């Protein structure tokens, strides 16, 4: 059976990291653009003698909101940086999923996807490299988006199973048959990512899949 080699896995992780940096940069840029226009509007109104207390309060509130959203992106990026540089110790799968979805919020909206999550309380730390987990989960979401070109929902459900963690990726919507030809090599990269995490990946038809993770010892 064909297996994905080190170069293919490295490329997959690098592509994932590049995609996440791109999404974060886009989102930060948008926050800065709103801030610049808000400040510009305050200046315009002041110059025109039209600045009122209500408008100023609204602008301050908007700026505060934008700063908060920019800080969230910075925190999420910091978490991603930690995951990409991790050298052992396992990882919190629920937090990793939260960071991933935070960065992918705009991407999901662009693809008319709503991503829901059901994460069981008290999941143990997962074993393996969190960068591989994030990369694999992202690739499975991209696969769902390709299967649902008209949009839909994807449910990520993580539960404790036996001695490990099971993460189900369940798309729902209107798939377009044959919309995207699936490359066996891509699926093999996905499986190899799961193997290198110490777990396994099972494709279940359409975009659905299950990742089984071992716990950290």
């Amino acid at each position, binding site marked *: 059976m064909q297996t994905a080699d080190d170069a293919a896995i490295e490329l997959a992780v690098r592509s994932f990291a590049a995609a996440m940096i*791109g999404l974060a*940069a*886009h989102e930060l*840029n*948008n926050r*800065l*653009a*709103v801030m*610049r*226009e*808000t400040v*510009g*509007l305050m200046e*315009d*109104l002041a110059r*025109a003698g039209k600045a009122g207390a209500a408008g100023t309060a609204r602008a301050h509130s*908007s700026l505060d909101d*934008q700063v908060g959203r920019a800080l969230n992106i910075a925190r999420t990026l910091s978490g991603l940086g930690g995951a990409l540089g991790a050298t052992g110790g396992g990882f919190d799968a629920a937090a990793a999923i939260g960071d991933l979805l935070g960065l992918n919020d*705009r991407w999901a*909206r*662009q*693809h*008319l996807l709503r991503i829901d999550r059901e994460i069981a309380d008290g999941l143990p730390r997962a074993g393996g490299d969190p960068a591989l987990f994030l990369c694999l989960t992202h690739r499975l979401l991209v696969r769902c988006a390709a299967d649902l070109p008209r*949009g839909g929902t994807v449910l990520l459900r993580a539960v404790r199973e036996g001695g490990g963690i099971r993460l189900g990726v369940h798309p729902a919507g209107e798939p377009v048959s044959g919309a995207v030809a699936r490359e066996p090599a891509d699926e093999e990269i996905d499986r190899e990512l799961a193997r290198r995490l110490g777990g396994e990946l099972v494709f279940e038809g359409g975009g659905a899949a299950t990742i089984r993770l071992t716990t950290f010892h």
Partner: protein
Amino acid sequence: MFGKKEIKVLLVDDEVEFVTTLAERLRLRELNVDTVFDGTQALAFIAKTEPDVIVLDLKMPGLHGIEVLREIKKTRPKVQVIILTGHGTDQDEAEARKLGGFDFLRKPAEIDLLVRKIKEAFQEKVERVMSAIAFAEGGDIDDAKKIFNKEE
């Protein structure tokens, strides 16, 4: 010469706060501005009325800005389109220009630059329409069509 209030601008961007704030700033500069929040709404808008200049984002839910630009140029070839994007690639820029986009700006753009580009786009549109009319009146319908559709 045309007054700025006569320039009808449509802003298309899914970032609601950005687009509403920018619209207000452009109105303070006496432009006639409408806003919509995705490509489908933009196409519905231009099916009913024709703005002079559309300021169009690229990455939006559903239709990508490049697809929206393609459709605008098919149905309303006179309308000028300025791309204003936070994350456009060089490939996007080349494609937008190939499809007849007037200019390609990156967010956040200086308001004075954006206003200048809107005015230039409008001016070019007016000159093109007047040229096309002159050719048509001279009986040269083919050339008039080419100028009208920016094929020259």
